[in-house]
């Protein structure tokens, strides 16, 4: 599937219809396995964020993380690019290999 740059790919459980972040496990709500893919706007709202002053071996300090809520209440833990966002900030989230990255969304970004 071709994602537009401002889209984020999620999974939807075929049994209970819950949306969740794609994973190798069953639906976190009902345990069902079959799921469909859905795309949602990549803009979400910051629920919490922090600066990791003492990162693990292999990471540079300071390292910033944010918990971002996108469509349908789905949450993403993302590496922050740029300054630490405050609670309620809008960020654009994108997948990057096994993880996610987020940066402050430009004014008027598409989101929920």
């Amino acid at each position: 599937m071709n994602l537009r740059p401002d889209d984020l790919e999620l999974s939807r459980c075929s049994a209970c219809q819950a949306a969740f972040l794609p994973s190798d496990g069953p639906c976190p709500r009902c345990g069902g396995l079959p799921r469909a893919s859905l795309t949602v706007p990549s803009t979400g709202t910051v629920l919490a964020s922090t600066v990791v002053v003492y990162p693990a071996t292999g990471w540079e300090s300071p390292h910033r993380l944010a918990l971002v809520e996108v469509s349908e209440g789905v949450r993403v833990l993302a590496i922050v690019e740029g300054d630490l966002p405050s609670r309620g900030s809008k960020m654009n989230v994108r997948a990057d290999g096994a993880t996610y990255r987020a940066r402050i969304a430009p004014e008027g970004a598409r989101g929920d």
Partner: protein
Amino acid sequence: MSVHVASIGMGRYGKRPEGLIDLAVEASTLALEGIGRKPVDLLVVGTMFAQGAQGREPLLPHLAGRLGLESSSGFRVDSSSGTGGMAVHAAVLALESGRFDRALVVGAEKMTNRPTADNTKDLSSSLHPSEAAAGATMPALAAIATQRYIERFQLTPAICDAATVHARAMAASNPSAHFQKAVTVEEVAASRPVALPLRLLHCSAISDGATALVLERGEGPATVLGLGQGFDTLRLVDRKDLYSFAATRRAAQRAYDSAGITPKTIDVAEVHDAFSPFAMVHIEDLGICGPGEAPTWFERGWVRPDGRVPVNPSGGVIGRGHPVGASGVAEVAEVALQLRGEAGRHATAKRPRVGLAQAMSGIGSHNYVTIMGSTGR
């Protein structure tokens, strides 16, 4: 079939010159001497890293040899920071099966000989790989959970300071604790940021240490009344929220049900405050107080040794120090000491009849609740 704690061997926690095996032998010897060296037919060892001077160490057979227990059976368990809770549960279940009569349970960890960043990396191995891949650390995720707790109940970050002050005040009366000095709110609030709102004194320390217990079939002042384990999703983003841990709620419900009691019966609790505000989250999840009420309990001193329900009279993980594989055994040991009237200077004002110990793995991915009380004799 009943199982009770017959003897406790509490080694000193802190920065110790000894290696892993010597720490484990020290605590084990104290526990075995406490029962007059009666024979033990099961050895259960809990360690997360099994870190010796030359890297990973074969702790289980090495310890069996050092203690002369080669004729017993044995196994080693690892459940990250909840390892000690798992070790106690494994031993209780084995004794309850009737296959064994007396077990030595040892939790041990050697950590202070390694760089902090290496400990941080290995501790984050208890997180979901996708979240560890984002560079998440235990303090970072604890900081995010604490922010959610503060927001949910309209609190201020100062609650974290109050929790640390309580823990360190308790530890100052516990000769086994890593930290022997109380701290003030000002000192906690001025300590350096680790992952805000968490500062250095809100986070458990990297410590060396070991604790051992002898469990045997029969009844006594510290009989196991109930056990419960509980999981939650390993990936934090899959949880409904982070201001409460389902793994504790599930473990507690199973433990209360198996003991046939309610949270109202608990006279003393030892909970896994790897980060000081988690002591508040835990007593809410255990039903000792209601959701959002714990900060008031700490503020009004209801968790002190003479309060409604004393919490972490040992100093908890924050005050006692956190040799990860040992902490869960120390939590059960502390409750047993209180029930047996052997807690000395850190005894609660009134000797408890029923106590609860809770251990946590990762950020609440699988938790263990053990309820003990006075029965028989």
